[in-house]
């Protein structure tokens, strides 16, 4: 597993909102199953003293840290406030922020990521489903029943497409080490490259699936720099240029980042690329 394990204490920011409360309950249901620490505290400014899904709420991360031991935070705050929450977590000394939030202004994301880097804090997301290390820890909103523990790492810019692939891997008997949703925004914290570096250091991970999509070139940048066995699927081969396909970052701009050229570049590096999601398990078997 990477980024955390069952001993990682998690603080949820935006705990008292509908999403925050709902997912604190689900995350802790999972942590009880696997015997992990789970979400130890929630933070919503002005709501100290409340309790959400059995978890105490504080006004700030620093207040929560006085009572609880935590090294990561998961954000469910609205877009306009998310940049601030990332910086608060970094400034408080947490080593990881998982930003689930969608619709963060991209300048806020860029500033918050720069700020977090200065404080030695990694940011996953924004606009992501978080991560899941089956049998160890869930930080985010991924459904757990589709996954099982194993040796395949998954890195994805998407949410539900990740679940689709995880389901297919599990059905094919290919368990996962850690599944990381890095987010669908144009600017994100941890990229394919950063997560691949972590997987390289992770003894459990033997092969990695890269789930990319149109827009940018982060998939190729990651693939080029690793010697781990990887297989890829790139969504958006049918995406017309200059149209945003749901994700803020899923857009072919100025002739850059289209699926066909991305796939061609990956294949040139020797990375097997699935032409449909159902081919991924076979490709992984072949490189394992």
């Amino acid at each position, binding site marked *: 597993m990477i980024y955390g394990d069952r001993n990682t204490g998690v603080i949820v920011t935006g705990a008292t909102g509908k999403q925050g409360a709902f997912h604190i309950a689900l995350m802790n249901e999972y942590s009880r199953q696997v015997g992990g620490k789970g979400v130890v505290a929630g933070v919503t400014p002005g709501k100290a003293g409340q309790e959400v899904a059995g978890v105490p709420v504080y006004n700030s991360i620093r207040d929560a840290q006085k009572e609880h031991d935590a090294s990561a935070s998961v954000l469910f705050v609205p877009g306009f406030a998310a940049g601030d929450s990332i910086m608060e977590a970094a400034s408080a000394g947490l080593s990881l922020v998982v930003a689930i939030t969608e619709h963060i*202004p991209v300048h806020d994301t860029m500033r918050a990521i720069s700020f977090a880097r200065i404080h030695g804090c990694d940011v996953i997301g924004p606009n992501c489903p978080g991560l899941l290390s089956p049998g160890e820890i869930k930080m985010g909103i991924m459904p757990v029943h589709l996954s099982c523990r194993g040796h395949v790492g998954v890195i994805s810019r998407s949410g539900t*497409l990740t679940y689709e692939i995880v389901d297919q891997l599990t059905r094919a008997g290919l368990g996962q080490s850690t599944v990381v949703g890095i987010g669908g925004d144009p600017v994100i914290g941890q990229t394919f490259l950063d997560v691949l570096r972590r997987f390289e250091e992770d003894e459990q991970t033997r092969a990695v699936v890269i789930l990319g999509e149109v*827009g940018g070139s982060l998939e190729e940048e990651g693939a080029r720099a690793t010697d781990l066995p990887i297989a890829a699927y790139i969504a958006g081969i049918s995406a017309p240029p200059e149209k945003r396909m749901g994700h803020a970052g899923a857009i072919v701009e100025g002739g850059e980042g289209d699926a066909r050229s991305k796939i061609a570049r990956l294949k040139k590096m020797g990375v097997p690329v699935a032409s449909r999601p159902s081919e991924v398990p076979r490709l992984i078997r072949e490189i394992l």
Partner: protein
Amino acid sequence: MKLLEHEARKIFGEYGIPVPKGFVICSPGELESRMGELGTRFVLKAQVEVGGRGKSGGILMADPSSGKQMAEELLQKEIKGVPVREILAVEYLEIQQEYYMSIAIDRSTKQALILFTDQGGVDIETLAKEQPGAVRKASLPLLMRDIPPFMVRDLLGKAPKELAKVMNQLYRVFCERDALLAEINPLVTTPTGVFAADAKLIIDDNALSRQGITLNRDLTEREREAEKHGFSYVELEGDIGVIGNGAGLTMATLDLIEYYDGKAANFLDVGGGADQERVMHAVRLVAADPTVQVIVVNLLGGITRCDEVARGIISAGISQQVIVRLAGTNEAEGRQILDGSGYRMMESMEQAVKAAVEAVK
């Protein structure tokens, strides 16, 4: 959102970036009454949000004798399918040299990317490919308040010093206006000084409210409906309607349709929490497109309730066939509800897509 040239140049002007004298008109009469302000030669520029206006006849040279007639013709034109409603009339510039200057977002470095070249007026992507050395670039973390002077010097090279101020002000615009792209192409020198002869500004959709901007896009009825419900919706040219949850899965569904030689009519991502109400609206919206022959619904989620989705599909009450792939809680109930109503529920997205492609053959 991409601003129109006249909106962008107004903002550039507010930041002290010199722009040529000019005004916006909606009718030939308006031009006639004000054309005296522009001198003996001027330029009429169609205000449309599509690129490549010049090549499509959207930029015309005019003089006081021809101006009214040309404005009239331009206002009746369509540029790449977009009707011309407004014209920016600007003074003619005696151009000595054209430059290109832009600030954009660089996904790889997560910083601002500043580009500059003394070969302005061309398509920057083509130039960067053909003569990579001709375009100078630098990355700047957005935590920086100004562009450091060394960076400005490196970027400008031998270009006139007046351009330094423009570059710094363009960075201010970029930062303060939540821009995804701030571009001047061409930035020109004339005997009377430096001017931004064009202005392009794309504002982050997620920052429109704090920028006090309301979307003014021309939307089709179905696009408006999608916006109302918070669906991501893109119209395409095929006959298979697509509804999915999550952008990646929906895109993958479209790709699979293409893989099996079908053609998708649209991309529709219902987003999270697909309940009966949302699914019903989504199905009705896609079905309202007359080119849609069959609809594939591909929903996968831990918390999506299949019985809710099934009821949503049925309550939409549409005439087209709907092929459904559902995975989540209460799958068996969902299947039962659909089976009883004559809709087809498939085990996998692959099966659902195959069935849809078969159905339109």
